[in-house]
């Protein structure tokens, strides 16, 4: 057979050859199946992850509230000093009216059905709209966390009383309120428009979202121009020498330096030496910028490289300077890729936790920051804080916050993919 093979005659139709070919095709199919399995393993994991999060988190998107009518025209309120009025008593009186007579001993339990910030909520509404003082107004007051859990079926009322956070009297009153149709479960806008709070029923992500926004803004403003400038320099101008080699190695290395190390850097340099304020989005954003920078440089360089040299030569050939060729032709052509890379880099920065923990962006702050110098949290650190809170309501809220964060990430990635596909260019 060997001799035959060498003289150029192989019997391709022989049984042995055919069997062999069948086995080869089977091996081919097996490899294909392994690939499918690998992909479905990864996707299945993703599905389970999102599934569990949604399962625990969906409850946080509604909030149990009680609708209470308060006749403010009767109340003793000095219109000149709305802050100073005794809102606590006003609200308590109104609440008491909802269920008739309550023995004194039960009052504390009863009031604990409602969020303890109820007076402040009413006050803030009135301050925002003083016309409410002229008559009877309806206020929707969130129930406190244990009752919210009860309403959502998270607390089993059949358990012995000492095993649950709500006692029998509270359940009794809750049922009364429900019977009167005062209880509702509207969509929890507070999750998006409130800042953090100790009370799960009031806690929201507004502070974290704006903190993340400011930090990302800083990150973008620093890393985008610097990253592009550095990439252009390294790709188009830098002579090949020791220094540029070192820079190159450095950049590649920084792209893989553990994020916690950037936190240590921020702690020592930005907080320690520069004396920048703790917990500020400025510092968080600077750490994130340093983290994003290498990724951005690498992406930008790759996209500059992918512009065919014929375009470069064309521009130079009619007498454009190097700077002009880059500014007029190469940069615009690689912009879609750069934008994609930037968005992906920012998305990564958005989800980054460790460096923010170290520069103090895991603080408790009850108002959204108004700028980059004000203390704030960010989405991932807010998740971290909520996850560590004892109140039951924060369990669902943590998952909900993660879902919100994931939604942001998916949107950002979708934009990136859209850009990539829209502007993808084939030469």
């Amino acid at each position: 057979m060997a001799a035959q093979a060498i003289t150029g005659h192989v019997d391709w139709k022989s049984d042995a050859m055919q069997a062999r070919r069948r086995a080869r095709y089977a091996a081919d199919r097996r490899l294909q199946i392994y690939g499918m399995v690998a992909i479905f393993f990864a996707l299945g994991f993703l599905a389970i992850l999102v599934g569990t999060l949604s399962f625990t988190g969906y409850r946080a998107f509604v909030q149990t509230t009680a609708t209470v009518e308060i006749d403010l025209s009767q109340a003793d309120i000095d219109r000149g000093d709305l802050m100073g009025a005794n809102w606590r008593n006003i609200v308590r009186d109104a609440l008491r009216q909802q269920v008739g007579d309550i023995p004194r001993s039960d009052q504390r339990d009863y009031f604990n059905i409602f969020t303890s910030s109820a007076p402040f909520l009413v006050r803030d509404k009135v301050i925002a709209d003083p016309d409410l003082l002229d008559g009877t107004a309806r206020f929707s007051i969130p129930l406190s966390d244990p009752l919210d859990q009860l309403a959502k079926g998270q607390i089993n009322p059949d358990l012995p009383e000492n095993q649950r956070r709500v006692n029998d009297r509270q359940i009794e009153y809750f049922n009364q309120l429900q019977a009167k149709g005062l209880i509702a479960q509207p969509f929890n806008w507070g999750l998006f428009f409130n800042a953090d709070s100790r009370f799960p029923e009031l806690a929201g992500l507004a502070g974290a979202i704006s903190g993340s926004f400011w930090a990302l803004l800083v990150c973008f403003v620093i890393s985008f121009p610097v990253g592009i400038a550095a990439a252009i320099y390294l790709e188009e101008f830098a002579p090949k020498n020791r220094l540029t080699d070192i820079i190159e190695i450095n950049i590649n290395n920084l792209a893989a330096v553990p994020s916690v190390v950037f936190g240590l850097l921020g702690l020592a340099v930005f907080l320690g030496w520069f004396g920048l304020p703790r917990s500020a989005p400025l510092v968080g954003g600077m750490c994130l910028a340093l983290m994003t920078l290498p990724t951005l440089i690498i992406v930008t360089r790759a996209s500059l490289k992918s512009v065919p040299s014929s375009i470069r030569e064309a521009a130079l050939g009619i007498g454009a300077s190097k700077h002009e060729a880059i500014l007029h032709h190469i940069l615009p052509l690689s912009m879609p890729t750069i934008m994609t890379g930037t968005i992906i880099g920012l998305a990564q920065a958005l989800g980054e936790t460790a460096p923010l923990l170290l520069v103090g962006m895991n603080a408790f702050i009850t108002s959204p920051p108004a700028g980059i110098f004000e203390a704030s949290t960010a989405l991932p650190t807010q998740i971290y804080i909520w996850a560590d809170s004892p109140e039951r309501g924060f369990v669902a809220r943590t998952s909900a916050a993660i879902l919100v964060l994931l939604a942001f990430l998916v949107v950002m990635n979708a934009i990136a993919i859209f850009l990539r596909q829209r502007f993808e260019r084939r030469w």
Partner: protein
Amino acid sequence: MNMLTDAAVEQKLHSTSNEAAIKMRGKDVTVHYNGKQALFGVNLDVPEQQVTALIGPSGCGKSTFLRSLNRMNDTIEGCRVGGEITLDGDDVYDPRIDVVELRARVGMVFQKPNPFPKSIYENVAYGPRIHGIARNKSELDQIVESSLEKAALWSEVKDRLNEPGTGLSGGQQQRLCIARAIAVSPEVILMDEPCSALDPIATAKVEELIDELRENYTIVIVTHSMQQAARVSQRTAMFHLGYLVEEGATDKMFTNPDDKRTQDYITGRFG
């Protein structure tokens, strides 16, 4: 230098025989790339144990036709082949045909030498191994040696079979690719501008080799050099804009073409 003399060329041209058996035949072959037609009803016979050259200006469909002969076009997304192509009378686009077998029987050498990033030995042994042609190591050794010998490379590489194939010079690489194709004992060898990336000396060597291979194999070669076509082929087919303009014995084509476009092309009026 191993350059062919004029006399040799002359001699070759006259050795053409029209009565050779037909090894492959294309009937009304059309090819579309993503809906854009690249070949229009090409009818061409490839006679056995002869060298058929395909010539024509750039983009006229030479490579496209060549690649449809061993269904390499299957690997191109959006490429659709119509008409009929037969090998020894069997339709190669018949669904029952096994492409693996087809490609083993109809080997191919590409424009740019593309040795695998493996040792020289492994490059040649790859085909026999996957097809299970050799039964043991010594048979495999034998196949490798004889293939390299036929490709006129053995003497140059026999002492460094374990060095990477990519380390050879361009001409050697191209001969290595030819050896690799020969190693699976194909019946037909398709060559797509095999010399266009080579320097003149390497080109001459490969041309010489093609001439020798003709004794055992049927060869179809695409070339952009009229001179090369004249030197190595017995039959020539001229393509233009996706149409087969003219085909015939090489000597006739180059001395007395029927078609004005062929005339213009070989005299360098265009292309």
